[in-house]
Protein backbone atom coordinates (compact mmCIF):
# COMPACT_ATOMS: atom_id res chain seq x y z
CA UNK A 1 0.00 0.00 0.00
CA UNK A 2 1.42 3.37 -0.96
CA UNK A 3 0.60 6.60 0.87
CA UNK A 4 -1.32 5.09 3.66
CA UNK A 5 -4.14 7.29 4.79
CA UNK A 6 -3.23 9.64 7.62
CA UNK A 7 0.52 9.78 6.95
CA UNK A 8 0.57 13.56 6.47
CA UNK A 9 -1.89 14.36 9.24
CA UNK A 10 -0.39 12.25 12.05
CA UNK A 11 1.25 14.38 14.76
CA UNK A 12 3.91 11.83 15.79
CA UNK A 13 4.92 11.55 12.14
CA UNK A 14 5.30 15.34 11.91
CA UNK A 15 7.51 15.46 14.98
CA UNK A 16 9.59 12.52 13.77
CA UNK A 17 10.03 14.12 10.35
CA UNK A 18 11.11 17.50 11.74
CA UNK A 19 13.56 16.16 14.33
CA UNK A 20 14.78 13.43 11.97
CA UNK A 21 15.31 16.03 9.25
CA UNK A 22 17.30 18.31 11.56
CA UNK A 23 19.44 15.35 12.68
CA UNK A 24 20.03 14.31 9.06
CA UNK A 25 21.11 17.79 7.94
CA UNK A 26 23.49 18.34 10.85
CA UNK A 27 24.88 14.78 10.54
CA UNK A 28 25.44 15.29 6.82
CA UNK A 29 27.50 18.44 7.36
CA UNK A 30 29.49 17.20 10.33
CA UNK A 31 29.78 13.69 8.89
CA UNK A 32 31.75 14.87 5.85
CA UNK A 33 34.49 16.24 8.13
CA UNK A 34 34.31 13.19 10.37
CA UNK A 35 34.83 10.77 7.49
CA UNK A 36 37.58 12.92 5.98
CA UNK A 37 39.41 12.97 9.31
CA UNK A 38 38.99 9.21 9.75
CA UNK A 39 37.07 9.75 12.99
CA UNK A 40 34.21 7.31 12.41
CA UNK A 41 35.09 5.46 15.58
CA UNK A 42 35.12 8.67 17.62
CA UNK A 43 31.70 9.55 16.20
CA UNK A 44 30.33 6.17 17.13
CA UNK A 45 32.05 6.27 20.53
CA UNK A 46 30.50 9.61 21.45
CA UNK A 47 27.07 8.27 20.53
CA UNK A 48 27.62 5.21 22.72
CA UNK A 49 28.97 7.18 25.63
CA UNK A 50 26.20 9.75 25.39
CA UNK A 51 23.76 6.92 26.07
CA UNK A 52 25.06 6.98 29.64
CA UNK A 53 23.76 10.55 29.78
CA UNK A 54 20.46 9.39 28.35
CA UNK A 55 20.21 6.79 31.09
CA UNK A 56 21.10 9.39 33.71
CA UNK A 57 18.34 11.69 32.47
CA UNK A 58 15.75 8.96 33.10
CA UNK A 59 17.08 8.75 36.63
CA UNK A 60 17.23 12.50 37.29
CA UNK A 61 14.04 13.27 35.43
CA UNK A 62 15.66 15.91 33.21
CA UNK A 63 15.28 16.46 29.48
CA UNK A 64 16.96 13.47 27.77
CA UNK A 65 18.63 15.69 25.16
CA UNK A 66 20.46 17.55 27.93
CA UNK A 67 21.62 14.21 29.36
CA UNK A 68 22.90 12.98 26.00
CA UNK A 69 24.52 16.34 25.26
CA UNK A 70 26.26 16.71 28.61
CA UNK A 71 27.74 13.24 28.57
CA UNK A 72 28.91 13.51 24.96
CA UNK A 73 30.59 16.87 25.68
CA UNK A 74 32.37 15.40 28.72
CA UNK A 75 33.57 12.44 26.66
CA UNK A 76 34.74 14.67 23.79
CA UNK A 77 36.72 16.81 26.21
CA UNK A 78 38.22 13.75 27.88
CA UNK A 79 39.25 12.19 24.58
CA UNK A 80 40.92 15.42 23.50
CA UNK A 81 42.68 15.76 26.86
CA UNK A 82 44.08 12.24 26.56
CA UNK A 83 45.54 13.86 23.44
CA UNK A 84 46.83 11.03 21.31
CA UNK A 85 48.62 12.03 18.15
CA UNK A 86 49.35 8.56 16.84
CA UNK A 87 46.46 6.97 14.99
CA UNK A 88 46.71 3.68 16.88
CA UNK A 89 46.87 5.42 20.24
CA UNK A 90 43.81 7.51 19.33
CA UNK A 91 42.01 4.31 18.43
CA UNK A 92 42.88 2.89 21.84
CA UNK A 93 41.85 6.01 23.79
CA UNK A 94 38.51 5.98 21.99
CA UNK A 95 38.09 2.31 22.81
CA UNK A 96 38.79 2.83 26.49
CA UNK A 97 36.32 5.74 26.57
CA UNK A 98 33.62 3.55 25.02
CA UNK A 99 34.25 0.75 27.51
CA UNK A 100 34.12 3.03 30.53
CA UNK A 101 31.17 5.03 29.20
CA UNK A 102 29.10 1.97 28.43
CA UNK A 103 29.94 0.49 31.79
CA UNK A 104 28.52 3.64 33.35
CA UNK A 105 25.46 3.36 31.11
CA UNK A 106 24.98 -0.22 32.31
CA UNK A 107 25.06 0.94 35.92
CA UNK A 108 22.68 3.87 35.34
CA UNK A 109 20.25 1.66 33.41
CA UNK A 110 20.36 -0.78 36.28
CA UNK A 111 19.46 2.06 38.67
CA UNK A 112 16.71 3.15 36.29
CA UNK A 113 15.17 -0.29 36.42
CA UNK A 114 15.64 -0.66 40.18
CA UNK A 115 14.62 2.77 41.44
CA UNK A 116 12.17 4.13 38.92
CA UNK A 117 10.96 0.83 37.43
CA UNK A 118 11.41 2.23 33.93
CA UNK A 119 11.35 -1.04 32.07
CA UNK A 120 12.51 -0.96 28.49
CA UNK A 121 14.84 1.97 29.19
CA UNK A 122 17.69 -0.09 27.71
CA UNK A 123 15.87 -0.48 24.43
CA UNK A 124 14.77 3.16 24.28
CA UNK A 125 18.22 4.54 24.96
CA UNK A 126 20.01 2.22 22.57
CA UNK A 127 17.61 2.08 19.67
CA UNK A 128 15.56 5.25 20.02
CA UNK A 129 11.82 5.52 19.61
CA UNK A 130 11.15 8.00 16.89
CA UNK A 131 7.37 7.96 16.95
CA UNK A 132 7.24 8.74 20.65
CA UNK A 133 9.32 11.93 20.66
CA UNK A 134 7.31 14.62 22.46
CA UNK A 135 6.60 17.65 20.19
CA UNK A 136 8.03 20.11 22.76
CA UNK A 137 11.45 18.62 21.99
CA UNK A 138 11.48 20.38 18.62
CA UNK A 139 12.70 23.87 19.70
CA UNK A 140 15.59 22.44 21.73
CA UNK A 141 16.60 20.05 18.94
CA UNK A 142 16.52 22.83 16.36
CA UNK A 143 18.59 25.07 18.64
CA UNK A 144 21.24 22.37 19.15
CA UNK A 145 21.27 21.62 15.44
CA UNK A 146 21.66 25.28 14.51
CA UNK A 147 24.52 25.83 16.94
CA UNK A 148 26.36 22.80 15.54
CA UNK A 149 25.87 24.15 12.02
CA UNK A 150 26.97 27.65 13.05
CA UNK A 151 30.17 26.34 14.67
CA UNK A 152 30.91 24.27 11.55
CA UNK A 153 30.36 27.34 9.35
CA UNK A 154 32.66 29.54 11.44
CA UNK A 155 35.43 26.93 11.43
CA UNK A 156 34.75 25.76 7.88
CA UNK A 157 38.08 26.76 6.26
CA UNK A 158 40.50 25.81 9.06
CA UNK A 159 38.59 22.58 9.66
CA UNK A 160 38.81 21.66 5.99
CA UNK A 161 42.50 22.46 5.88
CA UNK A 162 43.28 20.48 9.03
CA UNK A 163 41.22 17.55 7.76
CA UNK A 164 43.03 17.44 4.43
CA UNK A 165 46.55 18.07 5.69
CA UNK A 166 47.46 18.87 9.31
CA UNK A 167 51.01 19.77 8.32
CA UNK A 168 49.90 22.30 5.72
CA UNK A 169 47.40 23.75 8.19
CA UNK A 170 50.11 24.19 10.80
CA UNK A 171 52.31 26.02 8.30
CA UNK A 172 49.43 28.31 7.46
CA UNK A 173 49.05 29.23 11.11
CA UNK A 174 45.89 27.24 11.85
CA UNK A 175 45.64 26.11 15.46
CA UNK A 176 45.35 22.40 14.80
CA UNK A 177 44.51 21.27 18.33
CA UNK A 178 41.87 23.94 18.90
CA UNK A 179 40.27 23.06 15.58
CA UNK A 180 40.30 19.39 16.53
CA UNK A 181 38.63 20.13 19.86
CA UNK A 182 35.96 22.29 18.21
CA UNK A 183 35.24 19.51 15.75
CA UNK A 184 34.93 16.94 18.53
CA UNK A 185 32.49 19.23 20.38
CA UNK A 186 30.42 19.77 17.25
CA UNK A 187 30.52 16.02 16.76
CA UNK A 188 29.24 15.58 20.32
CA UNK A 189 26.34 17.98 19.62
CA UNK A 190 25.45 16.19 16.41
CA UNK A 191 25.65 12.74 17.85
CA UNK A 192 23.50 13.62 20.87
CA UNK A 193 20.88 15.00 18.57
CA UNK A 194 20.68 11.93 16.38
CA UNK A 195 21.01 9.63 19.39
CA UNK A 196 17.62 11.06 20.39
CA UNK A 197 16.08 10.21 17.05
CA UNK A 198 17.50 6.92 15.82
CA UNK A 199 19.05 5.87 19.14
CA UNK A 200 22.59 6.05 20.46
CA UNK A 201 23.97 3.23 18.37
CA UNK A 202 22.26 3.88 15.09
CA UNK A 203 23.12 7.58 15.04
CA UNK A 204 26.42 6.37 13.60
CA UNK A 205 24.56 5.39 10.46
CA UNK A 206 23.33 8.94 9.79
CA UNK A 207 26.74 10.40 10.56
CA UNK A 208 28.95 8.09 8.49
CA UNK A 209 26.86 6.55 5.71
CA UNK A 210 25.64 9.61 3.76
CA UNK A 211 28.96 11.43 4.20
CA UNK A 212 31.07 8.48 3.03
CA UNK A 213 28.78 8.02 0.02
CA UNK A 214 28.91 11.73 -0.81
CA UNK A 215 32.71 11.85 -0.55
CA UNK A 216 32.89 9.16 -3.23
CA UNK A 217 30.60 11.11 -5.53
CA UNK A 218 31.67 14.73 -5.11
CA UNK A 219 34.91 16.43 -6.00
CA UNK A 220 34.36 19.56 -3.90
CA UNK A 221 33.78 19.59 -0.14
CA UNK A 222 30.76 21.87 -0.56
CA UNK A 223 29.17 19.43 -3.00
CA UNK A 224 29.94 16.52 -0.69
CA UNK A 225 28.14 18.30 2.15
CA UNK A 226 25.12 19.01 -0.04
CA UNK A 227 24.92 15.41 -1.30
CA UNK A 228 25.39 13.98 2.20
CA UNK A 229 22.58 16.16 3.53
CA UNK A 230 20.24 15.10 0.73
CA UNK A 231 20.99 11.39 1.20
CA UNK A 232 20.50 11.76 4.96
CA UNK A 233 17.14 13.50 4.61
CA UNK A 234 16.02 11.06 1.93
CA UNK A 235 16.93 8.05 4.06
CA UNK A 236 15.31 9.48 7.20
CA UNK A 237 12.04 10.55 5.63
CA UNK A 238 11.92 7.45 3.45
CA UNK A 239 12.52 5.33 6.55
CA UNK A 240 9.75 7.08 8.47
CA UNK A 241 7.39 6.61 5.55
CA UNK A 242 8.21 2.91 5.15
CA UNK A 243 7.90 2.33 8.90
CA UNK A 244 4.50 4.02 8.91
CA UNK A 245 3.44 1.96 5.95
CA UNK A 246 4.71 -1.26 7.50
CA UNK A 247 1.84 -1.23 9.99
CA UNK A 248 -0.24 -2.50 7.09
CA UNK A 249 2.21 -5.17 5.89
CA UNK A 250 2.12 -7.20 9.06
CA UNK A 251 -1.20 -6.39 10.70
CA UNK A 252 -1.00 -5.08 14.23
CA UNK A 253 2.65 -4.19 14.50
CA UNK A 254 4.99 -1.98 12.54
CA UNK A 255 8.62 -2.51 11.64
CA UNK A 256 11.12 -0.24 13.41
CA UNK A 257 12.07 3.07 11.79
CA UNK A 258 15.77 2.59 12.57
CA UNK A 259 15.83 -0.60 10.53
CA UNK A 260 14.55 1.17 7.42
CA UNK A 261 16.78 4.23 7.76
CA UNK A 262 19.90 2.13 8.25
CA UNK A 263 19.02 -0.21 5.39
CA UNK A 264 18.55 2.67 2.94
CA UNK A 265 21.86 4.26 4.00
CA UNK A 266 23.73 0.95 3.81
CA UNK A 267 22.36 -0.05 0.42
CA UNK A 268 23.11 3.37 -1.08
CA UNK A 269 26.71 3.21 0.17
CA UNK A 270 27.24 -0.35 -1.09
CA UNK A 271 25.87 0.51 -4.53
CA UNK A 272 28.00 3.66 -4.84
CA UNK A 273 31.08 1.85 -3.51
CA UNK A 274 30.58 -1.00 -5.99
CA UNK A 275 30.79 1.33 -8.98
CA UNK A 276 34.47 1.77 -9.89
CA UNK A 277 35.78 5.19 -8.94
CA UNK A 278 37.00 5.72 -12.49
CA UNK A 279 33.41 6.12 -13.65
CA UNK A 280 32.75 9.02 -11.26
CA UNK A 281 36.10 10.55 -12.09
CA UNK A 282 35.42 10.59 -15.79
CA UNK A 283 32.30 12.58 -15.13
CA UNK A 284 33.29 14.79 -12.23
CA UNK A 285 37.06 14.86 -11.96
CA UNK A 286 38.98 13.24 -9.11
CA UNK A 287 37.00 12.72 -5.90
CA UNK A 288 38.26 14.04 -2.58
CA UNK A 289 40.90 11.61 -1.47
CA UNK A 290 41.32 12.49 2.19
CA UNK A 291 40.10 9.81 4.54
CA UNK A 292 40.43 7.19 1.84
CA UNK A 293 43.81 5.71 2.61
CA UNK A 294 44.33 7.27 6.05
CA UNK A 295 43.25 4.08 7.72
CA UNK A 296 42.59 3.87 11.42
CA UNK A 297 45.12 1.13 11.95
CA UNK A 298 45.73 -1.94 9.88
CA UNK A 299 42.67 -3.93 10.88
Amino acid at each position, binding site marked *: MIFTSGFFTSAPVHTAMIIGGVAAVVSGVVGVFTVMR*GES*FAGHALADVSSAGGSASFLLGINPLLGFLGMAAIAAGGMELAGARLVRERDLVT*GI*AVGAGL*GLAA*LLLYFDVTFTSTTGAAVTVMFGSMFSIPPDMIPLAVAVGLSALALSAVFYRPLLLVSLSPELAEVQGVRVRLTGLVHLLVLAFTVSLSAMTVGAILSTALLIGPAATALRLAKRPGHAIAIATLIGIGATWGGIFLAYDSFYWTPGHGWPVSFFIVSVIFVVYVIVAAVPERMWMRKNGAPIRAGFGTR*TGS*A
Partner: protein
Amino acid sequence: MFSSFMINTWVVATLVAVVAGTVGFFVVLRGSSFAAHALPLGAFPGAAAADLLGINELIGLVVFSGLGAIGISQLSRKGPHDVATALCLVMLLGLGTLFLSMTTEYSQGVYALLFGEVLGISTSEIAPVAAMSAVAIAAVAVLFRPLLLSSISTELAEARGVSSRRMELCFLGILAFATSISVPVVGALLVFSLMIGPAAGARSLTDRPQWAIFLSVGIALITVWVSIALSYVLNWPVGFFVGSIGALSYGMGRALR
Protein backbone atom coordinates in the same frame (compact mmCIF):
# COMPACT_ATOMS: atom_id res chain seq x y z
CA MET B 1 30.07 -16.34 46.36
CA PHE B 2 31.48 -19.79 45.60
CA SER B 3 28.25 -21.69 46.07
CA SER B 4 27.29 -24.29 43.48
CA PHE B 5 25.28 -21.97 41.22
CA MET B 6 28.23 -19.58 41.00
CA ILE B 7 30.76 -22.25 39.93
CA ASN B 8 29.63 -22.14 36.31
CA THR B 9 30.00 -18.39 36.29
CA TRP B 10 33.58 -18.55 37.53
CA VAL B 11 34.55 -21.25 35.03
CA VAL B 12 33.02 -19.55 31.99
CA ALA B 13 34.29 -16.11 32.97
CA THR B 14 37.81 -17.52 33.32
CA LEU B 15 37.65 -19.06 29.85
CA VAL B 16 36.37 -15.81 28.37
CA ALA B 17 39.12 -13.80 30.06
CA VAL B 18 41.86 -16.07 28.70
CA VAL B 19 40.55 -15.76 25.15
CA ALA B 20 39.89 -12.00 25.41
CA GLY B 21 43.36 -11.37 26.86
CA THR B 22 45.04 -13.31 24.05
CA VAL B 23 43.04 -11.85 21.18
CA GLY B 24 43.14 -8.41 22.81
CA PHE B 25 46.92 -8.31 22.46
CA PHE B 26 46.52 -8.33 18.68
CA VAL B 27 43.59 -5.91 18.78
CA VAL B 28 45.76 -3.32 20.55
CA LEU B 29 48.80 -4.05 18.40
CA ARG B 30 46.86 -3.68 15.15
CA GLY B 31 44.91 -0.64 16.34
CA SER B 32 41.63 -2.33 15.54
CA SER B 33 39.58 -1.35 18.57
CA PHE B 34 36.71 -0.35 16.33
CA ALA B 35 36.45 -3.82 14.79
CA ALA B 36 36.73 -5.33 18.26
CA HIS B 37 33.85 -3.10 19.32
CA ALA B 38 31.75 -3.67 16.21
CA LEU B 39 31.87 -7.46 16.04
CA PRO B 40 30.46 -8.23 19.52
CA LEU B 41 27.85 -5.52 19.15
CA GLY B 42 26.94 -6.68 15.67
CA ALA B 43 26.77 -10.28 16.87
CA PHE B 44 24.11 -9.63 19.44
CA PRO B 45 21.22 -9.43 16.93
CA GLY B 46 22.23 -13.00 16.06
CA ALA B 47 21.10 -14.07 19.48
CA ALA B 48 17.75 -12.35 18.94
CA ALA B 49 17.42 -14.06 15.54
CA ALA B 50 18.27 -17.46 17.04
CA ASP B 51 15.69 -16.83 19.73
CA LEU B 52 13.13 -16.06 17.04
CA LEU B 53 13.95 -19.26 15.13
CA GLY B 54 14.18 -21.33 18.28
CA ILE B 55 17.78 -22.45 17.76
CA ASN B 56 20.84 -22.23 20.01
CA GLU B 57 21.96 -18.69 20.79
CA LEU B 58 25.61 -19.52 20.11
CA ILE B 59 24.86 -20.44 16.49
CA GLY B 60 23.18 -17.09 15.92
CA LEU B 61 26.10 -15.25 17.51
CA VAL B 62 28.69 -17.11 15.41
CA VAL B 63 26.75 -16.52 12.19
CA PHE B 64 26.25 -12.81 12.81
CA SER B 65 29.77 -12.05 13.97
CA GLY B 66 31.01 -14.03 10.94
CA LEU B 67 28.81 -11.89 8.68
CA GLY B 68 30.29 -8.82 10.34
CA ALA B 69 33.88 -10.01 9.76
CA ILE B 70 33.23 -10.79 6.08
CA GLY B 71 31.32 -7.55 5.58
CA ILE B 72 34.08 -5.42 7.09
CA SER B 73 36.82 -7.05 5.03
CA GLN B 74 34.77 -6.84 1.80
CA LEU B 75 33.62 -3.25 2.23
CA SER B 76 37.07 -2.01 3.24
CA ARG B 77 38.38 -2.96 -0.20
CA LYS B 78 36.20 -0.18 -1.58
CA GLY B 79 36.69 2.59 0.94
CA PRO B 80 38.12 3.60 4.30
CA HIS B 81 38.35 0.87 6.88
CA ASP B 82 36.59 2.75 9.66
CA VAL B 83 33.66 3.61 7.39
CA ALA B 84 33.32 -0.06 6.43
CA THR B 85 33.33 -1.07 10.09
CA ALA B 86 30.80 1.59 11.07
CA LEU B 87 28.38 0.71 8.29
CA CYS B 88 28.55 -3.06 8.86
CA LEU B 89 27.93 -2.45 12.54
CA VAL B 90 24.86 -0.28 12.01
CA MET B 91 23.40 -2.62 9.40
CA LEU B 92 23.66 -5.60 11.76
CA LEU B 93 22.14 -3.52 14.56
CA GLY B 94 19.38 -2.40 12.23
CA LEU B 95 18.53 -6.05 11.68
CA GLY B 96 18.68 -6.42 15.45
CA THR B 97 15.97 -3.80 15.97
CA LEU B 98 13.85 -5.61 13.41
CA PHE B 99 14.19 -8.97 15.18
CA LEU B 100 13.56 -7.37 18.55
CA SER B 101 10.38 -5.78 17.28
CA MET B 102 9.14 -9.24 16.30
CA THR B 103 9.57 -10.84 19.69
CA THR B 104 7.50 -9.24 22.36
CA GLU B 105 9.06 -10.22 25.68
CA TYR B 106 12.69 -9.54 24.99
CA SER B 107 13.40 -6.28 26.78
CA GLN B 108 15.21 -7.93 29.69
CA GLY B 109 17.02 -10.24 27.28
CA VAL B 110 18.44 -7.22 25.45
CA TYR B 111 19.84 -5.86 28.65
CA ALA B 112 21.51 -9.19 29.44
CA LEU B 113 23.02 -9.54 25.97
CA LEU B 114 24.28 -5.98 25.90
CA PHE B 115 25.57 -5.75 29.44
CA GLY B 116 25.97 -9.36 30.54
CA GLU B 117 24.14 -11.68 32.90
CA VAL B 118 26.80 -13.70 34.63
CA LEU B 119 24.56 -15.38 37.14
CA GLY B 120 22.43 -17.26 34.65
CA ILE B 121 24.94 -19.71 33.17
CA SER B 122 23.84 -23.35 33.01
CA THR B 123 26.19 -26.34 33.14
CA SER B 124 25.33 -27.35 29.58
CA GLU B 125 26.74 -24.04 28.34
CA ILE B 126 30.24 -24.76 29.64
CA ALA B 127 31.26 -27.46 27.15
CA PRO B 128 30.63 -25.46 23.96
CA VAL B 129 32.29 -22.36 25.43
CA ALA B 130 35.33 -24.42 26.46
CA ALA B 131 35.59 -26.02 23.02
CA MET B 132 35.29 -22.68 21.25
CA SER B 133 37.87 -21.09 23.55
CA ALA B 134 40.30 -23.89 22.74
CA VAL B 135 39.73 -23.38 19.01
CA ALA B 136 40.28 -19.62 19.28
CA ILE B 137 43.50 -20.04 21.30
CA ALA B 138 44.74 -22.73 18.89
CA ALA B 139 44.07 -20.47 15.91
CA VAL B 140 46.09 -17.68 17.50
CA ALA B 141 48.93 -20.12 18.31
CA VAL B 142 49.05 -21.46 14.74
CA LEU B 143 48.95 -18.03 13.13
CA PHE B 144 51.09 -16.35 15.78
CA ARG B 145 54.16 -15.48 13.71
CA PRO B 146 52.52 -14.29 10.46
CA LEU B 147 49.86 -12.44 12.45
CA LEU B 148 52.50 -10.70 14.55
CA LEU B 149 54.54 -9.81 11.49
CA SER B 150 51.61 -8.37 9.57
CA SER B 151 50.46 -6.45 12.66
CA ILE B 152 53.81 -4.76 13.09
CA SER B 153 54.60 -4.04 9.46
CA THR B 154 52.45 -4.94 6.49
CA GLU B 155 55.33 -4.17 4.10
CA LEU B 156 57.71 -6.53 5.88
CA ALA B 157 55.03 -9.21 5.99
CA GLU B 158 54.28 -8.86 2.29
CA ALA B 159 58.02 -9.16 1.56
CA ARG B 160 58.05 -12.44 3.46
CA GLY B 161 55.07 -13.64 1.44
CA VAL B 162 52.42 -13.09 4.11
CA SER B 163 49.32 -11.61 2.49
CA SER B 164 48.10 -8.79 4.70
CA ARG B 165 44.60 -9.09 3.25
CA ARG B 166 44.42 -12.78 4.19
CA MET B 167 45.88 -12.09 7.64
CA GLU B 168 43.30 -9.37 8.13
CA LEU B 169 40.49 -11.78 7.32
CA CYS B 170 42.00 -14.43 9.60
CA PHE B 171 42.29 -11.91 12.39
CA LEU B 172 38.71 -10.71 11.97
CA GLY B 173 37.61 -14.35 11.89
CA ILE B 174 39.34 -15.10 15.18
CA LEU B 175 37.92 -11.91 16.64
CA ALA B 176 34.43 -12.87 15.52
CA PHE B 177 34.79 -16.34 16.99
CA ALA B 178 36.18 -15.10 20.30
CA THR B 179 33.37 -12.59 20.42
CA SER B 180 30.63 -15.17 20.06
CA ILE B 181 31.93 -16.97 23.13
CA SER B 182 32.06 -13.92 25.30
CA VAL B 183 28.84 -12.12 24.41
CA PRO B 184 26.47 -14.21 26.52
CA VAL B 185 28.79 -13.91 29.53
CA VAL B 186 30.00 -10.32 29.86
CA GLY B 187 27.60 -8.87 27.30
CA ALA B 188 28.24 -7.50 23.83
CA LEU B 189 29.19 -3.98 24.84
CA LEU B 190 31.79 -5.03 27.35
CA VAL B 191 33.47 -8.01 25.70
CA PHE B 192 35.24 -5.24 24.06
CA SER B 193 36.49 -3.57 27.30
CA LEU B 194 37.88 -6.94 28.31
CA MET B 195 39.86 -7.09 25.06
CA ILE B 196 41.16 -3.51 25.14
CA GLY B 197 41.89 -2.55 28.75
CA PRO B 198 44.08 -5.48 29.90
CA ALA B 199 46.03 -5.66 26.62
CA ALA B 200 46.63 -1.90 26.69
CA GLY B 201 47.91 -2.15 30.25
CA ALA B 202 50.14 -5.14 29.45
CA ARG B 203 51.64 -3.41 26.42
CA SER B 204 53.26 -0.74 28.54
CA LEU B 205 54.80 -3.24 30.97
CA THR B 206 56.83 -5.21 28.45
CA ASP B 207 58.09 -5.03 24.88
CA ARG B 208 58.24 -8.78 24.31
CA PRO B 209 55.15 -10.12 22.54
CA GLN B 210 54.96 -13.44 24.44
CA TRP B 211 55.23 -11.71 27.80
CA ALA B 212 52.69 -9.11 26.74
CA ILE B 213 50.19 -11.86 25.94
CA PHE B 214 50.73 -13.57 29.30
CA LEU B 215 50.39 -10.27 31.15
CA SER B 216 47.33 -9.35 29.13
CA VAL B 217 45.67 -12.67 30.01
CA GLY B 218 46.67 -12.18 33.65
CA ILE B 219 45.18 -8.70 33.86
CA ALA B 220 42.04 -9.88 32.04
CA LEU B 221 41.62 -12.69 34.59
CA ILE B 222 42.03 -10.31 37.51
CA THR B 223 39.60 -7.86 35.90
CA VAL B 224 36.92 -10.49 35.42
CA TRP B 225 37.34 -12.10 38.82
CA VAL B 226 37.29 -8.80 40.69
CA SER B 227 34.33 -7.63 38.63
CA ILE B 228 32.27 -10.72 39.35
CA ALA B 229 33.10 -10.61 43.05
CA LEU B 230 32.15 -6.92 43.29
CA SER B 231 29.05 -7.48 41.21
CA TYR B 232 28.03 -10.36 43.49
CA VAL B 233 28.53 -8.27 46.63
CA LEU B 234 27.03 -4.97 45.45
CA ASN B 235 24.54 -6.44 42.98
CA TRP B 236 25.61 -3.85 40.39
CA PRO B 237 26.08 -4.89 36.74
CA VAL B 238 29.35 -6.69 35.93
CA GLY B 239 29.85 -4.53 32.84
CA PHE B 240 30.34 -1.43 34.93
CA PHE B 241 33.26 -2.98 36.81
CA VAL B 242 34.84 -4.49 33.69
CA GLY B 243 34.72 -1.11 31.94
CA SER B 244 36.09 0.81 34.91
CA ILE B 245 38.93 -1.61 35.65
CA GLY B 246 39.79 -1.66 31.93
CA ALA B 247 40.10 2.13 31.90
CA LEU B 248 42.10 1.96 35.13
CA SER B 249 44.64 -0.50 33.71
CA TYR B 250 45.05 1.63 30.59
CA GLY B 251 45.55 4.73 32.73
CA MET B 252 48.09 3.00 34.94
CA GLY B 253 49.90 1.72 31.86
CA ARG B 254 50.16 5.25 30.50
CA ALA B 255 51.36 6.62 33.81
CA LEU B 256 54.08 3.98 33.96
CA ARG B 257 55.50 4.73 30.54
